[in-house]
């Protein structure tokens, strides 16, 4: 029996539905996703980059410039908050903005969020923005204020968690802004290293269980900092085996847990960075991802039959790209943007050097 997953007509139909789903994110969202109210920037990045990877960036529901302007509207500049406040960067939404005058201090509790800064930069790159409206120094100095003595980084200056996720966002931001001088990368390595568990992979903080998401954040951070080589041969060997062992058909994120489509990305990208993705079974992986595809809404969900959501939809698209499915654009497995967007970044870096 022919596997319909590879049928060109079915692929086209599904791509159309995915495009519709992603476009919708940029338009209007139902109230039931209210917990994402402070993460709209992340959703924008997922949608824009998802369309890009599908080669459908021409189907954005707004112009590139409108979205770019919307993104910059979330930038907290050094005029509004001091650069050492840890606040300069991008907000996730305008939910707590009280003054439409962009040059006036909003209020003391107006702060940026590292993951939103990372999301904003990725979306801007994908949309073709040259990042010239940024004060790089302000953003980086703010991040400097957020790094803790143990090397970890908090997302905001509001008593938040300081786990490996935000070290990842930081490394992406430093990589994109092409400047590592504001963070202590030695300490960052030490913190990441301390998240290695007896299982051979990384938990979110020291002592926590080895987990696919944290492992991606750790490995991608090390990759971007050029410090993967600082792990020992034995550590790399155990890490590789732990990651490979996550594949059941799709992938799970922790030992003895059910598969979840997003780990096709978190683990898939990690394996790609470790240069061993080709040791996995692509067919089983692709088939599982599509089992989670919802034909009605056009998105991917964590499990077959579950409701889709923007994160799993974007991760599903990225995971398919990693295993060369159809003619999806290749992605940069650490920054998680298309190769095209990454090439635009390289040009920006060249321009900055001159």
């Amino acid at each position, binding site marked *: 029996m022919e596997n319909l997953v590879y049928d060109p007509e079915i692929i086209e139909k599904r791509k159309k539905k995915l495009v519709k789903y992603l476009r919708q*994110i*940029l*338009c*209007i*969202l*139902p*109230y*039931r996703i*209210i*917990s994402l*109210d*402070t*993460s*709209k920037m992340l*959703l*924008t990045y997922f949608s824009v980059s998802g369309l890009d990877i599908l080669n459908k960036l021409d189907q954005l529901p*707004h112009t590139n410039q*409108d*979205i770019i*302007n*919307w993104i910059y*509207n979330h930038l907290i500049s050094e005029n509004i908050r001091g650069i050492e406040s840890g606040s300069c960067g991008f907000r996730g939404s*305008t*939910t*707590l*903005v*009280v003054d439409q005058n962009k040059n006036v201090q909003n*209020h*003391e*509790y107006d702060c940026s*969020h590292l993951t939103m800064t990372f999301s904003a930069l990725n979306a801007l790159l994908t949309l073709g923005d040259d990042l010239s409206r940024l004060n790089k120094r302000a953003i980086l100095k703010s991040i400097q204020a957020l790094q803790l003595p143990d090397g970890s980084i908090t997302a*905001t200056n*509001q*008593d*938040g*968690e300081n786990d490996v996720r935000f070290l990842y966002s930081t490394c992406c931001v430093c990589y994109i802004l092409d400047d590592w001088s504001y963070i202590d990368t030695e300490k960052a390595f030490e913190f990441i290293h301390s998240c290695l*568990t*007896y*299982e*051979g992979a990384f938990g*979110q903080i020291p*002592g*926590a*269980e*080895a*987990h696919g998401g944290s492992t991606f954040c750790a490995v991608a951070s090390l990759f971007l900092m050029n410090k993967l080589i600082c792990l020992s041969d034995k550590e790399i060997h*155990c890490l590789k085996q*732990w990651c*490979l062992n996550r*594949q059941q*058909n799709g992938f799970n994120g*922790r*030992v*003895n*847990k059910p598969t979840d489509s997003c780990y096709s990305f978190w683990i898939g990208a990690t394996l790609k960075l470790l240069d*061993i993705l*080709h040791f*996995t*079974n692509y067919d*089983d992986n692709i088939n599982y991802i599509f089992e989670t595809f919802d034909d009605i809404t056009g998105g991917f969900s964590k499990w077959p039959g579950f409701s889709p959501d923007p994160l799993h939809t974007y991760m599903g698209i990225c995971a398919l790209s990693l295993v060369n499915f159809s003619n999806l654009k290749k992605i940069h497995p650490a920054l998680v943007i298309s190769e095209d967007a990454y090439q635009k970044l390289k040009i920006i870096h060249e321009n900055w050097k001159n």
Partner: protein
Amino acid sequence: MSDSESSDDYDSIAIDKNEWSDLNPINQDHETNEICRIAYTENFNDVFGYFRAVLKANEISERAFDLTYKAVKLNPANYTVWFYRRILLKELGKDLNHELKLVTQIIDQNPKNYQVWQHRRNVVELLQDPSKELEFTEKILQQDSKNYHAWQYRQWVNKNFALWDQELDFVSSLITVDYKNNSAWNHRFFCLINTDHSESVLNREVDYCFEKLNLNINNESVWNYLRGLVDLMVKEGFGYPEKVCQFCNLKLESKKEDELSPFLISFKIDYNWTRAIEKKNSDANAVKEIVQQSILYLNLLAQKYDTIRANYWKYLLSKWKQEFDQYF
């Protein structure tokens, strides 16, 4: 009233506009709201309209405190609301034990939300009273024995307040219920590292692994834990435990198909690699035997016991060939 609000909940989060007649709510910036618009309810707009006004005025008051409750009920992921609430907690000298009760309720309804666990931690830090915390995490773990936030939080309580006495029993009871609960195994290792990991304790732990492997040889959690133990024993200078070799060999020599597990086989292969490297220039016969055995096992994995990773096992085979060329 939206579907997601019961009538009880709705009363507790509705705004009494008379209470707020002196302050104008601030609307969200609509010009830039065209992208990623959420279909906010009227109630949400009211609550956050007044909260924006409170932030702008930097108002420290009881009504502001109540407002933060409404706001976090509507969106417990809004970290700034929680942050502002903590400021009000301090400035107004609120009863932190009452706050603990409240956050217990909210975590119960949102057990996978980061901000609510962070808030609990902040409150407990202020109270410096961990007496309810182990019981609380146990309750959450009863609902979901692998809740990552609950385990992470429990570990913070253990370490911060040096509360270790209950942990081994706790973790053992969870493993008895589900010997594949990897979170419990991870916690077990965490407790070991932070308390007694003397040679006798580690030996006891190895026996514990054997006991669980005899129930089910194909349990990845146990094999990972066992490898962690063995690495620790070597690191602490106790040497590689001979009984682990014996256990593996016994299982591997078994003819029964269900006595072989891919984790058992790859465990032995990893062990073999270390031994073969050690003896490479000193004991040719031993190395030859180890290499032959490893080739056999790698082929078994690729062809029969772990075919989904066949490409990897074939790659490892090529690595063995490369390193031990003369023994092929």
